[in-house]
């Protein structure tokens, strides 16, 4: 009886932090989470009256089977990866920059200005270079505004960067309906298509942006892991007080890092307008900035893992267009599926970081010793 009484004092289920977990086990948990999310999505598909296997199969074949499909998938994955890379240093520093969407647009506006109004004055390589530099600079400066306020006065960066998205979005609308409106287009006001000289060349069917973004991935890996800047970012992220104590100049680190973050986002904006849409629209950033946050987070800010995850999400997005044609399932299914996968992936991290201890398990005894 006394044993039972003693047992009652131990809760039925306890949670303890794991000291460490083997890589294999961690990945097993993540893969299980993805499978569970696909099953949940499958149940939804069954509820709609379709066969989940054929729907999933069509999603994959629809994104890879033909050259056109492959190119379309890559065109989604490239800006997504680029935007995720731009988020990595900010999030590592625990600066919750959710303004990537706006920084992409800011860069796109700057690049578009030269593409639309200066293309006659420059040769193609010079024009593309100027567009690139302008996008990087303006993207960085746009991100710098909230960063300066955060560094100086601790202004909440999450909401500040968020508001900046809407401000720049309305600037695009203003340009589209006002000064930059294409006079020769009737009806819905649009900005003119770029001149050929302002379009990025293709390599293997996709604009060369994919090489730029892959290069950025390697750069970001080295920058975060093997440079003094990367180390400073990590320290500020873990504890600002520690950083100050060891003599780091925290405001400088914050503004510098966020400038880089915004600059990369601006570059992504340049790649989108110059490489794939050839014009500036309200939809240029198209949610990439928001989706990229989840890419960066799921990859645990590891640039190489971001490649896999951005391709995965790109397949979902492209594949949902395929299933819309094949099964008449609305294309918004991709967001629903992305959401479900994100929920499971976010939830599974708990089981990687913590372990559950049930009453009467052996682990309890070991702990008492």
């Amino acid at each position, binding site marked *: 009886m006394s044993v039972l009484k003693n047992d009652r004092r131990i809760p039925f289920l306890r949670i303890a932090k794991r000291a460490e977990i083997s890589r294999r086990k961690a990945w097993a948990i993540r893969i299980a989470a993805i499978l569970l999310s696909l099953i949940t999505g499958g149940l939804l598909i069954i509820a709609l009256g379709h066969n989940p296997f054929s729907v999933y199969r069509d999603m994959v074949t629809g994104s890879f089977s033909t050259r056109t499909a492959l190119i379309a998938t890559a065109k989604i994955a490239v800006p997504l990866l680029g935007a995720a890379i731009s988020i990595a240093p900010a999030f590592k520093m625990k600066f919750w920059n959710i303004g990537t969407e706006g920084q992409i647009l800011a860069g796109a506006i700057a690049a578009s200005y030269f593409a639309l109004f200066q293309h006659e004055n420059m040769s193609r390589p010079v024009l593309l270079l100027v567009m690139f530099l302008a996008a990087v600079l303006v993207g960085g400066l746009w991100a710098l505004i909230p960063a300066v*306020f955060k560094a100086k006065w601790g202004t909440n960066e999450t909401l500040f960067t*968020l*508001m900046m998205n809407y401000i720049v979005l309305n*600037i695009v609308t203003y340009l589209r309906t006002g000064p930059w409106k294409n006079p020769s287009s009737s009806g819905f006001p649009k900005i003119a298509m770029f001149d050929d000289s302002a379009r990025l060349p293709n390599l293997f069917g996709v604009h060369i942006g994919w090489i730029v973004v892959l290069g950025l991935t390697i750069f970001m890996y080295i920058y975060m892991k093997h440079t003094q800047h990367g180390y400073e970012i990590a320290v500020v992220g873990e504890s600002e007080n520690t950083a100050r104590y060891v003599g780091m100049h925290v405001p400088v680190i914050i503004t510098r890092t966020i400038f880089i973050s915004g600059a990369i986002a601006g570059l992504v904006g340049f790649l989108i307008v110059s490489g794939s849409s050839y014009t500036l629209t309200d939809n240029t950033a198209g949610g990439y900035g928001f989706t990229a946050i*989840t890419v960066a*987070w799921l990859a645990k800010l590891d640039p190489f893992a971001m490649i896999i995850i951005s391709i995965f999400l790109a397949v979902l997005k492209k594949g949902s267009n395929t299933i819309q044609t094949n099964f008449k399932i*609305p294309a918004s299914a991709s*967001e629903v599926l992305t*959401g479900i996968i994100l929920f499971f992936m*976010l939830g599974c991290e708990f089981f990687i970081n913590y372990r559950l201890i049930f009453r009467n398990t052996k682990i309890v005894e070991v702990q008492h010793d």
Partner: protein
Amino acid sequence: MTDIINFLFAAVLAACPLLLGTLGETLTEKSGNLNLGVEGMMFMGGIAGLAGSYYYERSAAEPAAWVSVTIALVCAFLCAALGAFIYSVLTITLRANQNVTGLALTIFGAGFGNFFGEFIGNSTGGYVSVSQATKAGFNDPLFPFLSNIPVVGKLLFSYNFMVYLSLAIAIFMWYFLACTRKGLNLRAVGERHASADAAGINVTLYKYLATCIGGGITGLGGLYIVMNSSNGVGGVWVHNCIGGYGWLSVALVIFATWHPARAILCALAFGTLSVMRFYFPSRIIPISLYEILPYLATVIVLITVSLRKKRENQPPASLGLAYFREDR
């Protein structure tokens, strides 16, 4: 004169969904949860309410408007609360990052709304639309007999019931947070989880309830956007109909400095800014720059709040932090 009255009338109608979103998010944030999924929950509430009343009207022999309206309200509240519940499980129980989970909820909710909006439309051949009676239930003045009084009638008594409902929620929430024991407990949770826990408050329960009820209230805001016909269409699903109202609500919480009664004025200010362009078109400022004003105002408020560091205007101190009793 009539122009000004019409303008103020339209401003109140535009402010209502913002107020509901703001109130829901205020309640959520008071528990220390920064739920960035308001936009998603509004989508979920909007489509669930619309679908609920649509299916009721199709299945009932003689659908009654008030039943249809009630079903819409309940469905909207529950579905948005379900979204908030997913968020709660992930952030409170499973300790996931709040920012990322909120964004995931926005992605999911927007997809959910557009997906089912389109799906239900497709499956019935055309689009989802509720009956005139239900639409009238959402849009007709609550006090038709009083609304004929000149000036005052139009300004005070001619709104639909959702406007008065949101005002009632605001006042009740202000009373709840400021004057009741439970409200004090909730604020304690948001300020400092560990202290609240030590004082014997069930932190987890408070966080769950505040987040889910708050989410449900934002869902009513989503339903309002779907049902409101002041912009020409009402009671039908329009692709991406929430269009940033959720994010504006998140901003408004700061603008109102986490105060439900102040939220009424702030929502009204935002509503005014958002309809101003229709009534006072400016030759100097183009329309799209007019639309920047609410966001710009929020940024300015954010900066002033952080500069002045006035104690009662600060966000709940534990906002955005997960609580794990065993952690130190």
